[in-house]
């Protein structure tokens, strides 16, 4: 037993607290609004030991790097190694993005966070008629292995950790395969590669949804194929990053964000176990991608609660033993949806404290949004400013001096427990629905997220949720002085290259490659095993997608 306060003490504090509460009233003299977190949890005017009375230090907090990992996944956290500063970069043709990568690395970024354009994410080639207006937008365009070669030209793959924001399995299965194939061509063994690919089936079926995507089961299978492949061949690569960030951007609440990523990870783990892998072989490499939203303390509590829940899930459901399987590791990106197009420099202040909450919550890496994000793709200035925010947090604020600096705070501990409780309830509910894949097929997840998104918007419009510059402190005569980013010409560059490649490559090799993929689908084999080889023939992403959709069919998500 390591209760924090003995019963007599708690009793006395509770008695005093009650008296205080009575003489204070609700605590909203000036306005009678309710005090709730962004996710709707009611907040007390003051928190005291009374609110953490049930807590047992060793059981509920423990030491950093030890179960239940609430205080952090490493014993010394940022004292030994600061969080990785990742800045998203990607736009236009690969040669342009390659320049931006090099700029960020030379300015002190410690990893690459590559994003891909919409056609690539969807599995289309740049020359596809559907792609013509979106080529090079939102990320870099990748069609063949040649593009991947150009993208990482001159960047030491064995040293730099790369995060491939492939989003959906349909994109990941090809793009990650290209990354691996490119590494091999450069003589870098796969077991030397460090990085992460996003590869989340909910991205395809619930988030970045379009008509005619792969059905949930198929998308989920592709995602699991990559996990299995990496477990066997690229043990230092994180083959999946559960995209809580995007769930949250789409509208869900903090507890839903955590519950959905964990439910997703449970489903993947069950599948891996079914495929005969040991939990401690793959679980250490499951990683999470979370959203740094605007409720400062709720976010901190969210990260802490996620660690506690994950520990219990892996321990109890999967009997994991490796501490790395039990520790919830995550990357944070500050919330894009919380940024405003109005008075864009205000976004620096927002992102600053969003990132601070991630650091206080024990994130492993942090991306800070560019302040012009709500207006355009980040310019060079805004990307550097965002990187500097990260550096200032690490080097000037000295919040990295001690581990879990908020540990013990009555409010933070109470909120952590409250979020844990809500997350567990949602997990139970999804168990009842037959797991997350089923919950997706029936549209349950879509409904939850759309409800929350609608409520969020309504809260802004009724003023219940103030947003400076939007529903309060507006400027009518605002001029937007910031310089906007222009996407460089992409479609023509890609078209030219693709034409040349198609002329030069061997048609019979391409045929063979596509047949192999098709056969693998029929035999229910691991597709990544095949595609890593296939891409060497310079088969395009679009061609691979065509085979997969042909084999698995398409699905229209019940979005609205």
């Amino acid at each position, binding site marked *: 037993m390591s209760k924090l306060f003995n019963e007599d003490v708690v009793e006395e504090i509770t008695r005093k607290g009650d008296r205080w509460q009575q003489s204070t009233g609700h605590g909203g003299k000036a306005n009678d609004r309710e005090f709730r977190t962004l996710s709707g949890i009611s907040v007390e005017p003051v928190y005291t030991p009374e609110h953490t009375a049930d807590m047992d230090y060793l059981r509920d907090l423990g030491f950093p790097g030890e179960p239940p990992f609430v205080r952090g996944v490493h014993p010394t956290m940022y004292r030994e190694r600061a969080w990785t500063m990742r800045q998203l970069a990607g736009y236009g043709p690969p040669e342009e993005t390659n320049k931006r990568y090099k700029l960020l690395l030379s300015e002190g970024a410690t990893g690459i966070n590559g994003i891909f354009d919409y056609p690539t994410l969807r599995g289309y080639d740049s020359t596809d008629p559907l792609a013509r207006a979106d080529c090079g937008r939102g990320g870099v365009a990748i069609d063949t292995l040649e593009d991947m070669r150009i993208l990482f030209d001159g960047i030491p793959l064995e040293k730099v950790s790369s995060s491939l924001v492939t989003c959906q399995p349909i994109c990941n299965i090809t793009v990650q395969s290209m990354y691996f194939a490119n590494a091999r061509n450069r003589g870098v063994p796969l077991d030397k590669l460090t990085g992460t690919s996003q590869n989340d089936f909910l991205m395809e079926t619930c988030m*970045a949804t379009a008509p005619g995507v792969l059905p949930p089961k198929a998308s989920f299978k592709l995602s699991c194929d990559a996990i299995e492949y990496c477990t066997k061949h690229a043990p230092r690569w994180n083959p999946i990053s559960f995209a809580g960030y995007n769930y949250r951007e789409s509208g869900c609440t903090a507890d839903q964000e955590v519950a959905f990523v964990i439910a997703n990870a449970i489903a993947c783990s069950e599948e891996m176990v079914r495929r005969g892998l040991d939990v401690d072989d793959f679980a250490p490499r499951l990683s999470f991608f979370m959203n740094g939203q605007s409720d400062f303390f709720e976010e901190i509590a969210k990260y802490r609660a996620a660690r506690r829940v994950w520990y219990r899930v892996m321990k109890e459901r999967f009997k994991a033993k490796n501490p790395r399987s039990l520790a919830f590791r995550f990357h944070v990106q500050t919330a894009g949806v919380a940024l405003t*197009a109005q008075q864009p420099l205000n976004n620096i202040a927002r992102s600053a404290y969003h990132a601070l909450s991630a650091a206080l919550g024990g994130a492993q890496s942090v991306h800070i949004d560019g302040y012009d994000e709500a207006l355009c793709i980040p310019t060079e200035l805004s990307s550097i400013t965002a990187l500097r925010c990260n550096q200032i947090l690490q080097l000037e604020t000295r919040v990295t001096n001690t581990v879990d600096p908020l540990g013990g705070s009555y409010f933070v501990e109470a909120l952590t427990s409250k979020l844990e409780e809500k997350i567990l309830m949602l997990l139970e509910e999804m168990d009842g629905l037959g797991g997350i894949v089923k919950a997706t097929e029936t549209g349950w997840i879509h409904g939850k997220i759309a409800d929350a998104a609608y409520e969020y918007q309504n809260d802004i419009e009724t003023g219940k949720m103030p947003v400076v510059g*939007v529903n309060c402190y507006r400027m009518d005569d605002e001029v937007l002085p910031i310089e906007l980013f222009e996407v460089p010409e992409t479609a023509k560059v890609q078209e030219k290259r693709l034409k040349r490649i198609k002329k030069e490559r061997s048609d019979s090799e391409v045929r063979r490659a596509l047949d192999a993929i098709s056969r693998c689908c029929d035999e229910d084999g691991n597709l990544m095993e095949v595609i890593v080889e296939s891409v060497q023939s310079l088969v395009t992403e679009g061609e691979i997608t065509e085979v997969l959709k042909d084999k698995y069919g398409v699905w229209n998500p019940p979005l609205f």
Partner: protein
Amino acid sequence: MKKAIRVVIARLGMDAHWRGSVVVARAIRDAGMEVIYLGNQMPEAIVETAIQEDVNVIGLSTLSGNHLELAPEVVRLLREKGIRDILVILGGTIPPDDIPKLKAAGIAEVFGTGSSLEKIVRFVSGSD
């Protein structure tokens, strides 16, 4: 009884963000109008659906930056078919400098990030 206003909502091209379009679609439906939610489409398909479904308004959404290419195309295709009574509106991440260009191309109204649902609904229902 007056026929309800019919609106088709589509995300232009390949843009992945559905939050805005779904929230707007709901608000329009809640205001008593009929909504056909298309998801991602290219201009040809959007116009085709709009004609088949006999809608009054086409609501386009994009955050990817493809608005200057695709939104005017929707208007142009409508005009080519001789249709002038379908209102085309656009929402999403739209740099302020582009708004005049879009309006000149026939987009009736542009609702940038941070626009209120109330304003959009009022505009669509024609009471603005």
